[in-house]
């Protein structure tokens, strides 16, 4: 997998995890999940964000594909 593709995938997944960080408290506010579930979901989504966003940041961008 080229580093450019890896950056795209990890960046996209990082954004999804950040969206989950926001969705968890909204679901708790709407009484769809318990407080414990919200905290657990928020923590896991946060860890995912840091792993994926750091991976994206550390991967060098090898520029646009030739052609």
């Amino acid at each position: 997998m080229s580093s450019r593709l890896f950056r795209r995938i990890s960046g996209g997944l990082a954004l999804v995890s950040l969206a989950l960080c926001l969705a968890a408290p909204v679901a708790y506010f709407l009484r769809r999940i318990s407080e414990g579930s919200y905290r657990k979901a928020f923590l896991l989504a946060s860890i995912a964000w840091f792993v994926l966003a750091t991976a994206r940041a550390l991967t060098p961008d090898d520029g646009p594909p030739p052609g």
Partner: protein
Amino acid sequence: MAERVARLTAAMDRLYEFDREPVALDKLQSGGKFAGLFAGEHVAATEFVIGAFFVLHGVGARDLLLGLLLGNLLAVLSWTFICAPIAVRTRLTLYWYLRKIAGPGVTLIYNVANAFLYCILAGAMISVSATAVGLVAGIRVPGLGAVWPTSLGWVLVTAALGAAFTAMAVLGFSKLSRFAEVASPWIFVVFIAGAVAMLPRLGVSPGLENLWAVARVKVWNGVAAAGQEKFGLAHVLFFAWFCNLAMHVGLSDMALFRYAKKWTYGLYSAFGMYPGHMLAWIASGIMVAAVGREMHPGLMAFEAAGIAGVAGVLLAGWTTANPTLYRAGLALQTITPNWPRWKITLIAGGATTVLACFPVFFLKLLDYVAIYGLVLMPIGAIVFAEHWIFPLLKIEQYQAEKRGWTFNGAALGVWLGTLGICAILPIHLYFRWLPGWVLALVAYTGLMAWKGER
């Protein structure tokens, strides 16, 4: 003395040599970069304290919203109409432009004052992070009126955090700044998630029908906490405006905007102001109301988002204290010629750590922010006068540079005189900078015109 000043200014010039020349046109940055930079820079640990303090100062809900909307708009306009145009026309940092106007001696004093103020700010950020660690370690956070350290545990936690932050700043800024870029969007999410999660505790129904009523009665209810001054619309408006006074009216963000293609890029500061200085402040207000109005950022974040919230406070403190320590070190390096960067960062970090042990700096953060902006504001007025007003009145510009003055006496006198007058103005601290800015502008223009006639 003159020789010592000359030696120091020569060392200072070497330090800033890399940005001595105006920015080349091919180095200009896109608007998106400015939006990202502002968005990342203005969600700091201090946001946990500032928004919460508005609640404790008894701000009403309508005053808060209106004050933040207008105050942040004025801040954005200050960047757009005061800071960015001068930066785009000169393509210089404030350091080099001030040197032409006020001479290297005044620039040296400015740098040292800036370094000291940075250390206090970084200290406040460490204190905020200490509330998170203190919560885990079971250490009581100092009460609202505390000035001195209240327990050995508090001193140990702040000292340990200060040492850790300093060590990381010494070990390498560039890698850490990349981590800060990763952390900053998440820190903003911690604020928003925390506030949303606290709404049920405050009694907001899932349909949001009673949101405004809860905001008015349970959060921004207009009742100040014991010992806290009552704030109104004007306080909030002015605070939001002057919160970054040193950067916009004080012109230190010339360093940033010299890379802008157009002066209108100042408008991109809205990407920092409205999420960071509006939404994050509102969020921390909700969180403090939900924990019984206790000024305890660690507790607020823990109750709102669990252990991730505690990590959020810790990270917010670290990622913002780190560049602040770096800037303090850079500014201080001007008076310690030949010292390596690590050594001066260590000294700045040590001083910051000592300051962080004193809870007064984070518990009086709002007043400190006002003083910080006030102290550096007259320099912005002096530069503004020299840049825009002098050509209109046919007063000779850049006399310090042309005549080789180490100190432009008029600039130094106006700076100190303005601060002296601001100190005794019979109005609230938050409102003093505005008449002070006008006074500095008029006094400097008048003095230099008079000097020219002689």
